[in-house]
């Protein structure tokens, strides 16, 4: 018998083991640690954490609030997103790409920036309202400091999320189904009601579930709008508890974060159950349906759609920009008072701000670079290995992103509160714990496009390299990396953009010296320095926009759907 049998499997083993170890470390360990804290704090089984959490009225009030804003925020997002998707996909409105770019933009902007922008727009100090002379008197309450405000902004923030999923579903709708209905004598609205919408149920339901999870897990919007009104949802309650009590209340926080995790999972399960009830599979694949001709309605509909953009994107950003130019709270803005002092202060004068920019840049860049490097081998296993357990691997990577950010933040705190075993290294209260959480949370953002990239490559390309004698690592380097790099890099860019002004995770994990841009914005706003917060926000929005344009350069080499704002 030959001695060469089973040779050369070493690299495959090494890669699988490293990938599995990383995923255990980033996804599975923190979740297990969180569950342990609830059922067995300190290593002994106890229901104390659960019962103390369950008997606390604040818990129930916050849970109720979470459900209210989650439910209505989702409803608003679904109505907005689905209507826009129907109009953009099925009718002959013009200027589609530009509209999609603008409509999806809020998704690329951090929620707290959205919140800040809207606050600047409607508050008594609003430079815009002051210019128009319709500002409420100083000292009066901003109407957005309310549950309705939170719901409105959640709907604006996550409408695009619904839009993207429903639009993807509509694009798969075969034209024959629509044409058959029209040939049977159905008018456009009848077709919409009896054919299109029923077939879109799975997309809409999936989108609703995702929007729900995002709404209940959102921290930025209820933090900026709810805390001043003392309207607490679970993520903000956790933040307040930790801010007030420190590590001593971690057990409490763990309970709350599992509660919010359960609510999010309930949303996902409800979607699973609803989509199982009927078979909506669409069998044929064909061209998309001919767009419906709006005729004389085209111009009014276009005007309406752009009014929506003005309302949800341009006005708030404009408000943000104006606020960042105002020298102080409540001072009206005109040519004489406009100033760049706010920018100069946050960029050059305030030490913590410089640190925050540096931290956020380094953190986002490291998280993005790491995710790209890890996503390529992980996606290789997920897309090509064909092994059954790989499905769970993928699921494990999805988990830290699917669950609300506070869940992961609390889990990371629990894991690293004490020094890392065997090494004695303490990463709690350093920037490293934030990096860990970013790596765990955002890995999936690079993984998804990379998997899509693999599915576009003919596997024969790798097999050809194999028979040419190339080992796994050589193939990875010379064949696979060059081919999936654009998709993975686009994923990396998405991570960089998301992490740059991230708040949810860093609000719970930061310490003096490891501030992030998001934390800085939050503390300026809480301290009443909205102008500084606006200046920082304006800078991050600009960076985001530049990065989006940069990513567009990659678009020709990418699987469709990787860049959400590309039509």
């Amino acid at each position: 018998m030959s001695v060469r049998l089973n040779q050369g499997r070493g690299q495959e083993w090494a890669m699988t083991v490293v990938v599995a170890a990383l995923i255990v470390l980033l996804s599975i360990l923190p979740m297990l640690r969180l569950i342990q804290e609830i059922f067995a704090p300190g290593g002994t089984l106890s229901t104390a954490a659960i019962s103390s959490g369950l008997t606390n009225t604040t818990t129930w009030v916050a849970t109720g609030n979470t459900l209210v804003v989650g439910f209505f925020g989702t409803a608003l997002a679904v109505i907005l997103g689905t209507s826009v998707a129907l109009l953009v996909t099925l009718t002959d409105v013009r200027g589609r790409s530009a509209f999609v770019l603008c409509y999806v933009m809020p998704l690329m902007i951090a929620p707290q920036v959205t919140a800040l922008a809207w606050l600047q727009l409607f508050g008594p100090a609003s430079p815009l309202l002051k210019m128009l002379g319709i500002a409420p008197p100083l000292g009066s309450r901003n109407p957005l400091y309310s549950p309705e405000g939170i719901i409105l902004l959640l709907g604006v923030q996550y409408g695009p999320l619904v839009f993207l999923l429903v639009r993807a579903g509509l694009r798969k709708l075969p034209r024959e189904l629509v044409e058959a209905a029209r040939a049977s004598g159905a008018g456009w609205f009848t077709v919409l009601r009896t054919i299109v919408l029923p077939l879109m149920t799975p997309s809409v339901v999936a989108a609703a579930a995702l929007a729900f999870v995002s709404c209940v897990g959102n921290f930025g919007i209820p933090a900026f709008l709810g805390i001043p009104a003392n309207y607490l949802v679970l993520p903000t309650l956790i933040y307040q508890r930790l801010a007030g009590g420190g590590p001593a209340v971690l057990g409490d926080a763990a309970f709350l974060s599992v509660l919010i995790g359960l609510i999010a999972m309930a949303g996902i399960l409800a979607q699973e159950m609803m989509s199982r009830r009927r078979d909506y599979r669409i069998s044929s694949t064909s061209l998309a349906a001919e767009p419906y001709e709006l005729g004389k309605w085209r111009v009014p509909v276009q005007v309406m759609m752009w009014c929506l953009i003005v309302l949800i994107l341009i006005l708030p950003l404009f408000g943000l920009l104006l606020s960042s130019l105002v020298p102080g709270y409540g001072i009206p803005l005109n040519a004489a008072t406009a100033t760049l002092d706010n920018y100069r202060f946050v960029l050059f004068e305030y030490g913590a701000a410089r640190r925050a920019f540096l931290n956020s840049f380094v953190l986002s860049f490291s998280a993005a670079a790491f995710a790209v490097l890890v996503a390529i081998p992980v996606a290789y296993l997920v897309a090509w290995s064909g092994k059954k357990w790989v499905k769970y691997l993928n699921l494990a990577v999805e988990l830290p992103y699917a669950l609300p950010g506070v869940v992961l933040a609390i889990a990371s705190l629990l894991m690293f509160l004490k020094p890392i075993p065997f090494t004695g290294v303490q990463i709690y209260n350093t920037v490293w714990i934030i990096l860990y959480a970013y790596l765990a949370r955002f890995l999936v953002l690079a993984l998804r496009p990379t998997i899509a990239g693999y599915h576009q490559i003919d596997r024969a390309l790798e097999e050809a390299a194999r028979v040419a004698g190339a080992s796994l690592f050589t193939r990875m380097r010379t064949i696979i990396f060059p081919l999936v790099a654009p998709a993975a890099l686009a994923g990396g860019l998405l991570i960089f953009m998301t992490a740059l002004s991230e708040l949810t995770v860093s609000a719970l994990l930061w310490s003096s010296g490891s501030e992030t841009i998001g934390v800085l914005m939050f503390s300026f706003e809480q301290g009443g320095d909205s102008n500084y917060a606006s200046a920082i926000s304006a800078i991050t929005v600009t960076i985001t926009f530049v990065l989006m344009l940069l990513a567009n350069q990659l678009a020709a080499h990418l699987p469709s759907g990787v860049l959400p704002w590309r039509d």
Partner: protein
Amino acid sequence: MAGLTINDVTKTFGDFDAVKDVSIDVRDGEFLAVLGPSGCGKTTLLRLVAGFENVTSGDIRIGNEVVSTAEGCVPPEKRRVGIVFQNYALWPHMTVAENIGYSLKVAKVDAETRKRRVEDAMALVDLTGFGDRRPANLSGGQRQRVALARCLVAAPSLVLFDEPLANLDVHLRAAMEDEFAAFHKRTGTTIVYITHDQAEAMALADRIAVMDNGRLAQLAAPRDLYREPANEMVASFISEGIVIPAQVLSPAEGGHIKVSVLGQEVVVRCRPDEAPRAGAKICCRAPEISAATSSEPGIDGTVRRAVYKGGVARIELAPDADPSVLLHFEQPDPNPFEAGARARVRIASGWLIPGAAA
């Protein structure tokens, strides 16, 4: 160069036998075609030989080395086989020369030697001067030739072709067939050529292995496959053979035997050891059937279909004796037969399909 021995190989996916008890011995320098309808297991067989899949039982040897057994296998990168893929599988991010030189680079051949060998390989497939092009800028035939050169340059012991002509248009196919034949002649490489196109297999191969449902149905030279199919599947698969129940009337004599087919007595070819038996079947082909006049003896039936093919018409006849058998033959112009008409045909010859035990 090396021979290939596939010894009693079975490959099971779940509870499905993709390849079952297949044994094939490919001689050093032989051109073997593996032919079969889609889903017959021929692609799995190729992947087993290449090492992308491992055998469930049996073993595979290349030259003198065992490369696959149920216990383990030599991975593809260590087998020194070349593959020409159906869709070429050229790396889009490399130039033609980089594609061809890849295996040498991986083997750390020095740049000077590499350059020379790549040039040689390109000259061999008539691509001199194309080294700096990208695969995207080549025609289908040129890509195919790059794929050939790429597998040639490593001097593999065995070259596998995976339906290499399936993606080309008809005109190019004939040209590429010539190219493959020339390639084989020039290099003397052992070739295993997977295809579902019998004309291709017949034109190129020294021997053809016909596969059916994961099993080897017959392994024979093209002419033997056509004239002496070993079983019903091969008989009907190759060149649309017609399988007709027959009664054997006498023992074989000098390779021929007398049978009764659809009420007519016919002398057909057979194996030398045939004797009268029940349930026999013969295979005959369109050229062995022709129209007979009403005064001649023949088989009467009704014309089911008459399709004009240009110069000839293909006539399908349901004989009265057994309407479930469709006899088809070609009738030169002018064609007197219409669908529904009565006709009489004569079977000139055929082949007695060996019994299952034979």
